[in-house]
């Protein structure tokens, strides 16, 4: 009797979430896998037809697509792996030694950048990198050459924007990880005369390697799906020079009305994301 009641409760309480997830998450993913193989367009088409791997063939022959893949790689490596990850670890490590007021101040500023809505962050960094913006004002003051960053180095500008916006996440992950290293271990190394860098390399990094793996996975996935930040700053331009895959996908699907082709690109992005996701699960497998 009790068991029957429990399985009923179980089924009933899971239902709303499962229905929502199936209809609005699994559904679109399945639909994505379907229309990626069709020539569906935005307007004026009676019935889409099945075109096999044509969309993918078009993509790999498309210079603009290869450009977008390359820019996505640059964006991910520069802003996530090098930028957010390294800066986040450095901030977390320095914060352990710094005095309390400085720690609080830095935490507040870095986290504020993270909590701001994506579009607002985009505007702030647009203003910062524009020809008449703050960065050039500072360079002027230092008598260094200025340039129109959003035109000359758009992909670097948006990468720095993503570092500005996303570093707090890595900082919080690493602050938590470093806080769990027992004090005796670092103190013992200090007494043995190991310097700061050697302690970092031989003791700290190996001890937090699981956090490093988790963090790298999560920030890579977050960076792969950045859209609003780049869209606000450059619209993917000029001339496609900051057009990462999400922006390329959007342009093909909506500006050029090629939903089928845009979705094929989306499916590739989804597959790459899923692979990262599986690796992330393996890293966490002892936790579940």
């Amino acid at each position: 009797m009790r068991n029957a009641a429990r399985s009923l409760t179980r089924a009933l309480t899971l239902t709303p979430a499962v229905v929502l997830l199936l209809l609005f998450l699994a559904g679109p993913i399945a639909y994505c896998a379907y229309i990626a193989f069709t020539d569906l367009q935005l307007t004026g088409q009676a019935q889409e037809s099945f075109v096999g791997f044509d969309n993918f063939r078009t993509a790999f022959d498309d210079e603009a697509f290869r450009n977008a893949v390359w820019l996505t790689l640059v964006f991910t490596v520069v802003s996530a792996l090098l930028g957010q990850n390294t800066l986040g670890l450095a901030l977390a490590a320095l914060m352990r030694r710094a005095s309390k007021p400085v720690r609080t101040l830095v935490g507040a500023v870095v986290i504020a950048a993270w909590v701001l809505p994506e579009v607002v962050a985009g505007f702030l960094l647009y203003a910062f990198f524009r020809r008449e913006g703050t960065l050039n004002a500072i360079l002027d003051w230092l008598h260094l050459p200025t340039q129109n960053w959003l035109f000359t180095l758009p992909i670097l500008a948006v990468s720095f924007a993503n570092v500005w916006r996303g570093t707090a996440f890595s900082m919080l992950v690493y602050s938590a990880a470093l806080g769990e290293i027992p004090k005796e271990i670092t103190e013992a190394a200090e007494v043995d005369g190991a310097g700061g860098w050697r302690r970092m390399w031989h003791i700290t990094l190996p001890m937090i390697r699981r956090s490093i793996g988790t963090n790298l996975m999560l920030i890579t996935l977050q960076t792969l799906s950045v859209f609003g930040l780049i869209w606000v700053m450059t619209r993917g331009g000029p001339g496609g020079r900051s057009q990462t895959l999400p922006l390329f996908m959007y342009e093909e699907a909506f500006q050029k009305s090629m939903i089928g082709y845009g979705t094929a690109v989306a499916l590739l992005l989804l597959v790459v994301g899923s692979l990262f996701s599986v690796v992330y699960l393996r890293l966490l497998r002892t936790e579940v």
Partner: protein
Amino acid sequence: MPRPLSSHRTTHRLAADAGLLAVAAAFALPLAWVILSSLDTDADLRVKVPDGVTLDNFDAVLTPEITFTPLLNSLLLCGGGTALTVVCAALAAYPLSRFRSRLNRPFLLTILFATSLPITAIMVPVYALFVQVNLIDTLQGTIFFFAASQLPFAIWLMKNFMDGVPKELEEAAWTDGASSLQSLVRIVLPLMGPGMAVVTVFSFVMMWGNFFVPFMLLLTPDQMPAAVSINEFFGNRGTVVYGQLAAFSVIYSTPVILLYVLVARRLGGGFALGGAVKG
């Protein structure tokens, strides 16, 4: 011996302070721009101290058309999405946390897998699907999608928080004849107040800042939340009034900053991350 060590420590601390302050200054510049510009009617794109502080920019944007309607839309959209997310997540987390079953592990793994999928990638098919089932440009369609995209993480967090509530308290209620649902609502949820607060605030903040979802799924300008309507400042109104853009940005960002501070205070800074991404 203690003396050189402690002076060594002081040097280290000063170096760390200096390094951190330099980074903080770099991070603070764009933030300084938005605050200073919002108080300056002659604001341009660089950080400068205004000649005189005025609230004229705020006066200019605080109209129904520019601010109140988009903020109300944001509130309906994100409030609705958050409510749906939290209710579904709490219900789903309960059996996952309380009853043993062979299905728990595969279900949780699927949920965890879904938390890290790039949602951006499925927006084109979601758009195509919504056109077919007439959910495009509707508030409820967007709310459903928001809730579904936020649910995996919300369920995962909620389950972890629920695991922290001892089972014995409920067993007492069960012997008194309470049903599972009653014990969830009367005993478990009240005991995980901070956890509920984290899930609620996190979902709300994520939706409030989301640009791509409403940008794709809503078409009518009157329905647009602040995340999308803010682009109007760059639209067809001729020259951009940066002071007003900054003032609007401040108004639009304030709720999420306040919510974050509220929750972070109670939970000591780690926010939702502690339970979620422990490596």
